[in-house]
C-alpha cells in the first residue's frame, strides 16, 4: 500500500517535471496565474461602484491615457477596470459550467461504461441527441428559454458540455474496468459505487484534466459569444463579450472599445489552450519524443 502511494506520488512528480520543461505550457500557466490574481484582487485594483459601473458622460470614449490605460467606453467607464472585473465573470463561468458538465457527464459516463448493456445504450443514445445539436446552438436555446442571466448562461454551457465528458469517462471506464486492479477490488467485496469512485475515476483522470482545461477556454468563449448577441450577462455588469457588443457601434472612432476586451479573451483562451496542450503532452509521454 505504501509502495503504491509512493509510486503514485512519483508519477505525479514526473508529470509535473515534464510540464515544467514545456516552456509554452509554463507561459500559459503564468498568464493564468496573473489572471486569477487579477480576478481575486479586482476590488483592490479598481473599485467596482465608482470605476466599473458608475457612468461619467463627460469622460466618454476617451482613448488610452495614463489615467485610463485602455481608455473609456461610451458611458465614460474605465475599460481597464471593466476588463479586470470581467475576468471574474469569465473565470467563474468557466469553472462552474465545466464543473456542471464534468459532474453530470462524468456520472452518466461512469454508469454507462460500468454497467454497459441497456444502461449504456440508453445513456449514450440520449448523449448522441445532445451531440446532434451544435453546442453553441444548444446553449443559445437554453438561455433563450430560461432567460438571459449569468446563472442560466453557466447552466446552458454546462449542459451543452455534458456529452463530451460522458464519452470520455465512458471510454476510460470501459478500458480500465476489466483490468486486474478493478477485479481485485471487486473480489475483496467493494460495491459497484465504491469501485467506480475509488478505482476507476482516479485512473481516468488524465484525459479529463486535459479536456477540462480546454473546456474552460471553450466555456469562456461561449459566454462571450452569448453576451455578444445579447443573451448572456446583462449590462451594466462587465463581461468581455458584452463589452465587445457595446463597442460595435464605435468601430470607426473608438477602436479601443473592441480591441482590448477582445485581446483579453484571446490571451485567456490562448493561456488555457497552451496549458491544456502541455498537460496532454505531459500526461501522455508517448505523443512527445
Amino acid at each position, binding site marked *: 500500500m505504501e509502495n503504491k502511494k509512493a509510486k503514485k506520488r512519483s508519477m505525479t512528480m514526473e508529470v509535473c517535471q515534464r510540464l515544467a520543461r514545456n516552456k509554452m505550457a509554463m507561459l500559459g500557466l503564468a498568464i493564468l496565474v496573473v489572471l486569477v490574481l487579477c480576478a481575486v484582487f479586482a476590488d483592490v485594483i479598481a473599485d467596482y461602484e465608482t470605476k466599473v459601473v458608475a457612468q461619467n458622460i463627460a469622460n466618454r470614449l476617451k482613448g488610452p491615457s495614463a489615467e485610463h490605460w485602455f481608455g473609456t467606453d461610451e458611458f465614460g467607464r474605465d475599460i481597464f477596470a471593466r476588463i479586470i472585473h470581467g475576468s471574474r465573470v469569465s473565470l467563474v463561468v468557466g469553472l462552474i459550467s465545466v464543473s456542471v458538465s464534468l459532474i453530470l457527464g462524468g456520472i452518466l459516463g461512469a454508469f454507462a461504461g460500468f454497467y454497459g448493456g441497456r444502461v449504456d445504450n440508453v445513456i449514450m443514445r440520449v448523449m*448522441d441527441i445532445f451531440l446532434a445539436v451544435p453546442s*453553441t446552438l444548444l446553449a443559445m*436555446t437554453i438561455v433563450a428559454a430560461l432567460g438571459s442571466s449569468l446563472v442560466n448562461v453557466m447552466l446552458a454551457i454546462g449542459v451543452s458540455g455534458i456529452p463530451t465528458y460522458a464519452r470520455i469517462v465512458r471510454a476510460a471506464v470501459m478500458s480500465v474496468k476489466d483490468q486486474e486492479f478493478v477485479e481485485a477490488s471487486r473480489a475483496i467485496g467493494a460495491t459497484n459505487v465504491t469501485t467506480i469512485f475509488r478505482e476507476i475515476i482516479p485512473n481516468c483522470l488524465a484525459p479529463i484534466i486535459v479536456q477540462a482545461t480546454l473546456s474552460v477556454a471553450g466555456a469562456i468563449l461561449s459566454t462571450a459569444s452569448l453576451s455578444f448577441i445579447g*443573451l448572456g450577462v446583462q449590462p451594466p455588469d462587465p463581461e468581455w463579450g458584452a463589452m465587445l457588443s457595446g463597442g460595435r457601434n464605435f468601430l470607426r472612432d473608438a477602436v479601443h472599445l473592441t*480591441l482590448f476586451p477582445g485581446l483579453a479573451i484571446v490571451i485567456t483562451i490562448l493561456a488555457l*489552450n*497552451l496549458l491544456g496542450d502541455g498537460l496532454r503532452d505531459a500526461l501522455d509521454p508517448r505523443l512527445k519524443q
Partner: protein
Amino acid sequence: MHKYVIKRLIMLIPVVIGVSFLVFFIMSLAPGDTARTILGEDAPIEAIEALNEELGLNDPVLIRYGRYMVGLAHGDLGTSYKSGRSVFTEVMSRFPDTLKLAFWGMIFAVVLSIPIGIISATKQYSLIDSVSMVFALLGVATPNFWLGLMLIIGFSLHLRWFPSGGSEGWKALVLPVITLGTGCMANITRTTRSSMLEVIRQDYIRTAKAKGVGYRSVIYKHALKNALIPVVTVIGLQFGSLLGGAVLTEAVFSWPGVGTYLVNSIKAKDTPAVLGCVIIFSICFSIVNLCVDILYAYIDPRIKSKYK
C-alpha cells in the same frame, strides 16, 4: 455501401425526433406567457386566453409536441408568432445564404489548413512550422465575432476593400468567410500536423522508404491518406461549431441568413421560429456527419469492410 448509406439515412429519423423533442422541451421551460408577449402587456385577459387557446398553448407539453411532430412530418415547422408566416418558408428562404457562408468558410479552412499542416509536420521545428503553429494557436483562441470586428475595422473602414455588411456579390463574402473559417482552419491545421507527425513515425512509412519510395511519394502517397482519417473526423466536428459560428458571424456582418433570423427570434421569444432554426441546423449537422462517416469508409478500408 449503399445499404450502409440507406441504413444511416434511416437512423437520422430517431435523431431528428430526439433533437426536436429536446429542443421543444427546453423551449417549453420558458417562463412567461407567449400570448402576452405577442399581444403586448396591455392586452385584455380575454384576448390572451383566446389566443392561448387558439395556439394550443394550454395543452400539456406532450400533446403540443405530438402536434408539432405531425406537422414536422409534413414539412411544417409551425407558424411564426411574430410574422404569422410559415416558419419553414421563413427559414428556407434564408437557408441558402447561410449555407453559402458555411460552405465557403469550410472550403477556406480546409484548402489552407491541410497543406500548412503537412508542411509543418514534415519540417517539424523549422521556422515555417513555428510560425504556422503560432498562427494556429492564435486562430483557435480568437473569438470569431471579434476577428470579424477587427477585419471590418481594417479592411472595410480603413482600407475600404470590402463591405462591412450585406450579402451582395463576392466582395461581401470575403470578410465573413475569413471570420467564420479561421477557427476551423486553425483546428484542422493542428490536427493535420499532429496526425501527420504520428503517421510518419509508423513502421509502414519506414517500409515504404526501405522499398525505395522517394520522399514526396512517401509523404503524399503513403502518409497523407493515413493521416487524413483523424482530420476528416475533426472536419465533421468542426462543422458543428461552424454552424454555431455562423450565427455570430451573421450577427457581425448583418448577413441575412438563418443565424440572424434565429437571434431575432430568440429576442422576440418566437418559439416556433427558434425551434425551426435549431432543428434545421441539427438536421444539417447530422447530414454532414453522415457524409463524414461515408468519406471515412472511403479512406479507410478497415472501416469499409465492417459495413459490407
